[in-house]
């Protein structure tokens, strides 16, 4: 059974059918790419998957469980975490605390224990710190993580911090919305290695949106191409990228 199964997903904004009869099947461990020209509906698919929008039609199943129309919190608890195209960090909080917010539902401690500083508080903080630093080091963000505000990180590192924060929730499926946007070629290369690394060593399943074709062809094994809300084609990366229709859609004939 596929980890993620989307059937006939559609949503309209006013008269615009932003996503139209979208289908997708992702297996455990896949590194899957969702591409398409600007305004094709890629981010809208993510918003539908994570409960930000409710679909007009269609079914979303995670590991066989129907999660269609559930709220963002429930979807995160079910095992989907995401990053945002327009970075959404907790800007006034430290890099470390951003990841610790991601660990909120992993390590628990009741409010009374927090306020009274009972042993449970120190245990939770210790576990959270260990796990947070472990994740941050994967992205090379562990140095001065406690004393740097998220908003003071350079752009590329902010994107990495968002991935670390999403990973902190222990997702089964990770959605990355244009993770390389705003990065220079070096950073992009580094990011590609990191994405590979988290797939291999954390056993993560990843669905990513990206415009950078070098990244897409470099790491995605399968692709779905969206155009005007509809699927243009899907399948193995090489075949998809060789498809003349895809080339046409991108060159915008």
């Amino acid at each position: 059974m596929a980890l993620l199964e989307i059937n006939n997903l559609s949503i309209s904004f006013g008269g615009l059918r932003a996503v139209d009869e979208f289908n997708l099947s992702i297996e455990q461990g896949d590194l899957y790419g969702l591409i398409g020209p600007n305004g094709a509906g890629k981010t809208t698919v993510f918003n539908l998957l994570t409960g930000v929008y409710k679909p007009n039609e269609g079914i979303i199943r995670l590991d066989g469980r129907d999660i269609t129309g559930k709220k963002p919190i429930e979807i995160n608890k079910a095992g989907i975490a995401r990053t945002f195209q327009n970075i959404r960090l907790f800007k006034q909080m430290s890099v470390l605390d951003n990841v610790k917010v991601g660990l909120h539902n992993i390590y628990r401690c009741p409010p009374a224990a927090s306020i009274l500083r009972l042993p449970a508080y120190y245990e939770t903080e210790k576990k959270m710190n260990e796990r947070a630093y472990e994740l941050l080091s994967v992205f090379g963000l562990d140095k001065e993580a406690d004393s740097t505000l998220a908003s003071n990180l350079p752009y590329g590192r902010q994107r990495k911090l968002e991935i670390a924060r999403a990973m902190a929730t222990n997702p089964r499926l990770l959605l990355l919305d244009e993770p390389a946007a705003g990065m220079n070629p070096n950073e992009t290369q580094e990011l590609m290695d990191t994405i590979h690394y988290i797939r291999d060593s954390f056993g993560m399943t990843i669905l990513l949106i990206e415009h950078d074709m070098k990244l897409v062809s470099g790491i995605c094994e399968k692709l779905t191409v969206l155009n005007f809300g509809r699927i243009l084609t899907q399948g193995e990366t090489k075949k998809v990228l060789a498809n003349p229709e895809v080339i046409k859609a991108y060159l915008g004939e």
Partner: protein
Amino acid sequence: MKKILSQMDQTSRNDFITYGMVIGAFAVISILQALGILSSQIGGLLVPLCVYSIMAVSLNLVVGILGELSIGHAGFMCLGAFASAFFTKCVGDGMPSMLRFVIAILIGGLIAGVFGFLIGIPVFRLNGDYLAIVTLAFGEIIKNVMNSLYVGRDANGFHFSLSSANDMGMDALNGEMLINGPQGITGTPRNSTFLIGILILLLSLFVILNLIHSRQGRAIMSVRDNHIAAESVGINITKYKLMAFTVSAVIAGFAGALYAHNLSSLAATSARFGYNMSIMFLVFVVLGGIGSSRGAIIAAVVLTLIPELLRPIASFRMLLYSIILIVMMIVNWSPASRAFMEKHKLNRFLFKFKKSAGKGGK
């Protein structure tokens, strides 16, 4: 001392300085008082200073940490004041005065907290900035209700009315007025002392600072910084908004109890519990640097003391007061002075700054 400080991490050090500031101020003032140097004018201000500091810390939790606007916080203080004074009046001499006062304070906090919770439930379910308008209305309603509330007690038990004392149906000869409309509650014993005020302030700081630096506090701040992202990592937004707001209301209730037991006659006048007061608390928080409990306390103390100290030169009072307000504003918020403070690490000792560089963004 320096060594202890340097061993702590940044946040515990910051909290330590805040507690130290309060305890230090208490020690200095106690010594001055013992030496007889302190004027009676200042002596009379000590409890109100504690009350306003507690209100500033309480409101800072909502405005600075949760990022919601409450402009009716005087309403929670009013509830705490009346609930606690009512309890004290009912019990009378049936209990040792210290125990009675402690229970009265807890009741003040409880009642204010219950109202905070009840207001929060509908408001925080909506997405949007409805808290400001709802709390504004709440503050005024509470004040007006307290002004028209009559409660009496006779052999048959309690009697209530919202129109006049005669409507209560109380045995006028043998009954006792507990809350008398616009006159409020009279004859409350003056149990509040500077020491108790400082202890409640320290307790409030303990609760709020510990909350902020915990799993719950991070959840609250994440909602402030980006509620969409907070939801995406599984934070229950409504729950944490409610938690912060309720804790803040409880603490405002404590402040009200302290306030009520510093006055022998408690009436819900506009000067005490009107929206002007709520706005003043908001000014404390804003001038204190939004998000800094220490800054809020400093602002509360400075802005309460100045008008009093300037009384002798009455004609220039408001002028000087305005100038000081403006100077504080500039020192606290102008980019140049913030950069200066940051560079010289002065921010640690004065107000807390947020280094929002505005990179990335939407």
